[in-house]
């Protein structure tokens, strides 16, 4: 169930559980990527949603030693950003989803993912699924999170785009970002992750 690390924990998860899964206990260090795989319906998204404090749960998660409950929920969620498998958009264009202060970061993230700046002003429904998925990653990274919870972030991407996403994530790991990556792609898990955990029947084990 547990997989401990000797590095100081950026994210500590202690007996986190809800009626849909758990208890889960593990640590993720700064700059570490932990991949989680397992069959569909095993509770991988349930785990990520609990980590983002989007669903009610028992147990606790700590960010650099500070428990979820000790900080306001929006502060927790802007530090521990969750990106759903099918990211939703609430405005007509991608640009409307970014604060003006985030635009310089967006300007460097777009080319890194092979996106032209014109995608920012194209109506969202006219973008391809792959463009939307990459823009969602830009949206998540532009918030400057300390932990990124990614649910199948490259499911809709071609091999070239997958390579760009992995390179960008690798670069952010190098700068101390911690990542919990839910993926079906075992090869990707091996390329990006420092540890791989397997989630089955509501239990998390070292793969």
């Amino acid at each position, binding site marked *: 169930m547990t997989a401990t690390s000797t590095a100081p924990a950026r994210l500590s998860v202690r007996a986190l559980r809800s009626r849909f899964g758990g208890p889960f206990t593990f640590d993720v260090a700064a700059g570490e990527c932990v991949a989680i795989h397992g069959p569909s319906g095993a509770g991988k998204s349930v785990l990520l949603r609990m980590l983002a404090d989007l669903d009610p749960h028992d147990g606790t998660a700590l960010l650099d030693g500070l428990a979820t409950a000790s900080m306001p929920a929006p502060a927790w969620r802007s530090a521990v950003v969750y990106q759903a498998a099918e990211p939703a*958009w609430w405005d007509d264009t991608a640009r409307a989803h970014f604060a003006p202060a985030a635009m310089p970061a967006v300007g460097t993230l777009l080319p890194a993912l092979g996106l032209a700046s014109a995608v920012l002003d194209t109506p969202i429904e006219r973008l391809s699924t792959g463009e939307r998925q990459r823009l969602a990653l830009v949206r998540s990274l532009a918030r400057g999170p300390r932990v990124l919870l990614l649910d199948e972030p490259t499911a809709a991407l071609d091999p070239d785009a997958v390579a760009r996403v992995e390179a960008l994530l690798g670069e952010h790991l190098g700068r101390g970002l911690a990542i919990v990556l839910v993926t079906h792609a075992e090869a990707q898990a091996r390329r990006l992750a420092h540890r791989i955990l397997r989630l089955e029947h509501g239990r998390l084990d070292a793969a």
Partner: protein
Amino acid sequence: MNAIHLDAWDLLAAAGLIVLDAALSLWLRLGVHRQILVAAVRMVAQLTIVGLVLRHVFAGASPAATLAVVVFMVGAAAREVATRPKGRLERWMNYRISAAVVACAGFATVLLALTTAVRPTPWYEPRYAIPLMGIVLGSVLNAASLALDGVLDGVVRERARIEARLALGTPLREAIGPLVRSATRRGMLPVANQMSAAGIITLPGIMTGQLLAGMDPIDAVKYQILLMFLLAGASGLASCGAALLAVRALSDERQRLRTDRLRG
């Protein structure tokens, strides 16, 4: 006022129109004749009972009887508001929200009218308090049920969008703001339309009643204007209240969206 008195024969002549409807239904095979006849009989029975009860309450002018009638009306309106939306909140929250909103919006506007504009003696005079509450509740019912349905239905449709914003650290208030605004707007629009149409497209029911009862047109118009203001105020209070309380029921102290509290 010199109302023309209606006797049973006058009503019978108009009842001929119900027979005409039934005949049309039979002739064109619409299959609604039975429904129309039953509804007509029901309407006559309901209104007769209401007339008898009101005559009794008006004659007695007792505060307890007035309050009992008003509370019954509020309860009936609240039940209607709670059951109209398809979505149901757990722990009877539809009923609790509806009761709070209908009672607050209804009492606030009617008490305002009774103590400022109408000022009967005593202030709770049933001849004024009961009809005022009736017409205000009609609007409150419409506004509150539209706003409540707007939130309960919209939150399911908009869930992914709202949670995408929450997941990026946006406060719930901001993330759910567009939904609350659109639901509240839905509740307030009917009364705005009603005000714009009043007098040009429709002669409002109350005014028509007062004209038929022999009131001077300008006096009838003044009453109608007063009522429209009351209805607008009550609709605003009811829409805002229903939308905000529904959002409160659908969220928790950690600013999560709790659609698990909603059924079907």
